């Protein structure tokens, strides 16, 4: 352990020396006698002071994955050396993590045993991956003349998933995939939803015969049904720019929305993929199942805005990331024109595209002058024009304000798509 003198050691020798010097200069032994108790403490302390061995520290957490608002117990198991009477143990927490009803630093006394543990309930304030926790150890000698310190690095990573909104209404893709799922396909086949009637042909199952229609027409007619299929959805996250400070801005809102959407689609056995479209391109191919859900949310946690002035179009997106018939949902604050262009390009290539606009108004400063108010009005009008362009181009879009539920926004997009009777070329 490293050591450093405390403020006592910085003061006591000078004090004793000054009194001794005054005693010598003035010929008054009382001043030397007055210095004697402090000198005795200094002498005894320095003679008894020994550098302690580094205590063994093991760090563990009760969970490495948790949802926002949950607490995680960080347990420090410390092997106290025999020469350490008491050890202060503190954890240097990453920003955004707070200790819940516990002392940090805490103190472990040797009288409690050679091996002791200290548990700190921690609560991360927001989603994210928290890593590299540092444990700070501090001990003093018998007279608190020297301070011994060490830092122990604990490679613990805790992933905090954003709390998701439970969505019952989702945007319905125009076309389904070939695998079984829970979306009613437009095609006819084996399923539950009634689709049409047709004359009986050899090989049809008897249970498919519509006896009422057959009796009316004098020949056998069978029911046709819509099969239930799954869909492919690609979430296209706009990571070109964000409004608001880190942890509170549109990026935060985007990750929450994307998590809610991904969870809802995966719950319905659909396949979900992710493209982070911004300064850097990040992606995760479509997939389904609980393992893919974890992969997706881990990818959301790593989502960040990377500033870039390079022009980026959809041609930089690998073609395999956009499966045929996939619904592409762009989640964007509409702050960067490159994202709008990309949405139009995708739509122009025959993809089924919808968009959720993240309203950045709450993160824009209140105008303090007439000029600023005018600028804000122009900015709002430009945004409205962009929204109108998307709608005119056949891309359903609705605005989502932070703090409000996402489901009405999806219902608005879905309603617009139904009304527009969008057709993919």
């Amino acid at each position, binding site marked *: 352990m*490293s050591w450093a003198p*405390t403020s006592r050691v910085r003061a006591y020798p000078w004090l004793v020396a000054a009194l001794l010097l005054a005693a010598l200069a003035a010929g008054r032994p009382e*001043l030397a006698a007055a210095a*004697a*108790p402090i*000198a005795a403490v200094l002498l005894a302390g320095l003679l008894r002071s020994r550098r302690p061995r580094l205590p063994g520290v093991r760090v563990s957490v009760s969970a490495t994955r948790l949802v926002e608002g949950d607490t995680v117990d960080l347990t420090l198991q410390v092997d106290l050396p025999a020469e350490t*009477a008491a050890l202060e143990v503190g954890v240097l927490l990453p920003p955004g993590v707070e200790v819940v009803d516990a*002392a940090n630093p805490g*103190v472990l006394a040797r009288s409690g045993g050679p091996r002791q543990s200290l548990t700190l309930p921690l609560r991360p304030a927001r989603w994210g991956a928290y890593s590299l926790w540092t444990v700070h150890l501090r001990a003093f000698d*018998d007279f608190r003349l020297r301070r011994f310190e060490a830092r122990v690095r604990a490679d613990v990573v805790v992933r905090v998933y954003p709390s998701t909104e439970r969505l019952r209404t989702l945007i319905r893709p125009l076309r389904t995939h070939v695998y079984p799922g829970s979306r009613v396909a437009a095609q006819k086949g084996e399923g539950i939803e009634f689709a049409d009637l047709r004359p009986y042909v050899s090989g049809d199952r008897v249970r498919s015969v519509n006896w009422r229609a057959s009796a009316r027409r004098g020949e056998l007619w069978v029911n046709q049904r819509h099969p239930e299929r799954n869909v492919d959805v690609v979430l296209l996250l706009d990571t070109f720019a964000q409004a608001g400070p880190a942890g509170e801005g549109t990026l935060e809102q985007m990750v929450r929305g994307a998590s809610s959407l991904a969870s809802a689609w995966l719950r319905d056995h659909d396949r979900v993929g992710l493209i982070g479209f911004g300064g850097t391109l990040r992606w995760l191919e479509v997939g389904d199942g609980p393992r893919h859900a974890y992969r997706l949310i881990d990818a959301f946690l790593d989502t960040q805005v990377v500033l870039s002035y390079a022009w980026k179009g959809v041609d930089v997106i690998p073609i395999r990331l956009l499966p045929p018939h996939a619904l592409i949902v762009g989640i964007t604050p509409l702050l960067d024109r490159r994202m709008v262009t990309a949405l139009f390009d995708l739509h122009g290539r025959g993809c089924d595209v919808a968009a959720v606009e993240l309203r950045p108004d709450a993160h824009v400063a209140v105008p303090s002058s007439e000029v600023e108010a005018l600028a804000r009005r122009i900015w709002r009008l430009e945004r409205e024009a962009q929204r109108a362009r998307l709608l005119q181009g056949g891309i359903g879009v609705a605005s989502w304000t932070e703090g409000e539920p996402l489901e009405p926004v999806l219902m608005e997009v879905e309603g617009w798509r139904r009304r527009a009777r969008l057709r993919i070329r």
Partner: protein
Amino acid sequence: MATPRPAPHPLIPAVGAVVVAGVLVVVGVLHVDVNGENPLLVAAIGGVGIAGLLTTLWAVAERRAGRVGWAVAVLAAEYAISVIAGRAALDAEAPLVGVGLLLVAELSHTACEWRGPHAVDTSVELRRWARLAAAGVAGAVAGGGALALAGSVRGSVPGLLVGAAGVVGLVGLAAWLRRSTSDETLPAA
């Protein structure tokens, strides 16, 4: 899990330090043997003492451990002035004044270093105070012995040499301690 026993509130050592500093100021003024012939000297000594008291108060109020040394130094200066300028006879209570200075320093440091009720274990603190008391009493006894010896052989050459060597040694020690800190380690758990 070990539950640390909460330490007493820092107000207790802080008040203790100020009270002891006040006693030292009064003792310093009372030691002046001028019989009212030089009230200016009494006022000067009292002024230095009050400055020491205020410095102590300032240090513990703002919890700045670095100022404690200055507070104790001013209190010691008050005593030194009262001994040198205001008293002819040998002061037999000097070791007790030394204990008082030690007490002010330790109580003030304790008040300044308080970082919460669970950051200090009471039993460990009690053991430290017991050791401090033992060392302080031993120092006071040694100081009393030295004082008795100095009364008989006042101004002797060996005494002067020992004192000078002590001063040089302490200054060297202070300089070494001020400069020396070891490298910090960052091992993995």
